[in-house]
């Protein structure tokens, strides 16, 4: 290794250039390369096993330390299940009713039931800046890139890369990604990004100046996206401010999904109706527009 020791500065320079080239090449790719896939396929089962062991131990530990709270929680959960059962039967009736009326009006089901696949989070980004995590299912379970990921009734993010037995998910509280969104009550359209200044919150930008959005309004995904299906809850507005430079409004949004305690997620397998457009072109134009 003398040669390496003697020429380390040249080596370092060459390696830096390789890193730069890699960065430039990898920003516009949509599938992991063969090499990445191999590393991921080999490492993720190990990570999954260790994570399972770790969460088993911590769950036991928690069970010992807060038995009382667990009993209380159990009670309240039982009550909630009763309520939900009641709601469910009522909603089933409503759905039936709705289907009948839709049939009368000749409208095809707009909000068809989501076809979902449960997955466990096995590893999270080691850094403190980004929010990227890995789930334990990949192309072997029929997942592909750009499927929406939800948890606890709220949008979590989308699958960025899909390997054989793992997928990399980029969450919506990450500024690297943007979601086309709409306010449920007023119908205002904008797009939601992560906000690094307010950790764990999102920002909805480019809302029309005349909009009457207020605090507490529910934000859902709009139907304009070629990635996210329509009608997934994103979160609630906590604050609205005017962005003077662009004469638009910006809303601060608390996400509905609990990002601090994510352990399992649901992957929505439905693709939105706009997905038949050439995907590469649409995403590139949107990223340019969002700047």
């Amino acid at each position, binding site marked *: 290794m003398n040669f390496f020791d003697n020429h380390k500065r040249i080596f*370092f320079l060459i390696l830096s250039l390789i890193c730069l080239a890699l960065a430039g090449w990898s920003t516009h790719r949509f599938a992991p390369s063969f090499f990445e896939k191999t590393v991921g396929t080999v490492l993720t089962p190990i990570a999954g096993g*260790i994570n399972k062991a770790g969460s088993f131990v911590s769950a036991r530990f928690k069970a010992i330390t807060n038995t009382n709270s667990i009993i209380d929680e159990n009670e309240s959960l039982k009550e909630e299940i009763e309520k939900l059962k009641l709601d469910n039967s009522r909603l089933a009736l409503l759905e039936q009713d709705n289907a009948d009326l839709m049939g009368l009006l000749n409208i095809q089901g707009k909000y068809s039931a989501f076809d979902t696949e449960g997955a466990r989070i096995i590893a999270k980004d*080691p850094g403190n800046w980004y929010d990227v995590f890995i789930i334990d299912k990949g192309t072997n379970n029929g997942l592909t890139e750009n499927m929406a990921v939800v948890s606890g009734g709220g949008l979590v993010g989308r699958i960025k890369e899909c390997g054989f037995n793992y997928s990399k998910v980029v969450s919506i509280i990450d500024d690297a990604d943007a979601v086309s969104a709409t306010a449920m009550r007023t119908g205002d359209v904008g797009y939601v990004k992560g906000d690094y200044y307010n950790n764990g919150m999102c920002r909805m930008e480019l809302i029309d100046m005349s909009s009457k959005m207020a605090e507490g309004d529910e934000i859902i995904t709009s139907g304009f996206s070629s990635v996210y299906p329509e009608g997934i809850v994103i979160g609630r507005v906590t604050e609205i401010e005017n962005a003077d430079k662009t004469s638009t409004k910006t809303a601060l949004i608390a996400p509905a999904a609990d990002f601090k305690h994510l352990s399992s997620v649901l992957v929505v397998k439905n693709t939105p109706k706009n997905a038949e457009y050439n995907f590469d072109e649409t995403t590139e134009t949107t990223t340019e527009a969002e700047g």
Partner: protein
Amino acid sequence: MKYIVYTLLAIFNIILQTTIFESFAIIGIKPNTALIIVVSVAFIQGEADGIFMGLMAGFLQDTLFSVYLGCNMFIYALIGMVCGYCFKAFFKESFLLPLAIVAGADIFYSLIYFTLNILLMGYSNFLAFLLPKVLPELVYTVLISAFLYRIVYIITEFLNNRKSSRRRLF
């Protein structure tokens, strides 16, 4: 032999760091153990080893988690090289000195990472991140490094004795 051990160390680290250490997060902040290992190896073994260690650690982190490749590889290799310069100058058995170097490297890492990623997204105010992210990470990482440096030291000592290499510690 040496390089295989470094690779295994990097793999071992990334698996533990992304699974078990996640549950040790305090106010959502995790210690950067990859950085500690890179700094320790560079400090104990010199520049070339530091660069190799940094490349391995950064490569794994980039492959598995980054949105684009190459960024962490570059930063860790740079840190490995810079910390490798301290290799000849300082006494390796000191307790506080490695901690100071880790602290410096962590600030360096945060600054470069911020410049290469967050600043280019339009977040210009570094001071807004200082209190919620950079400082807690710094403190946590330095505390953890007090233990991890010892472990890396034992591993490298074992390697050096076994190979009876160019440098003996005692």
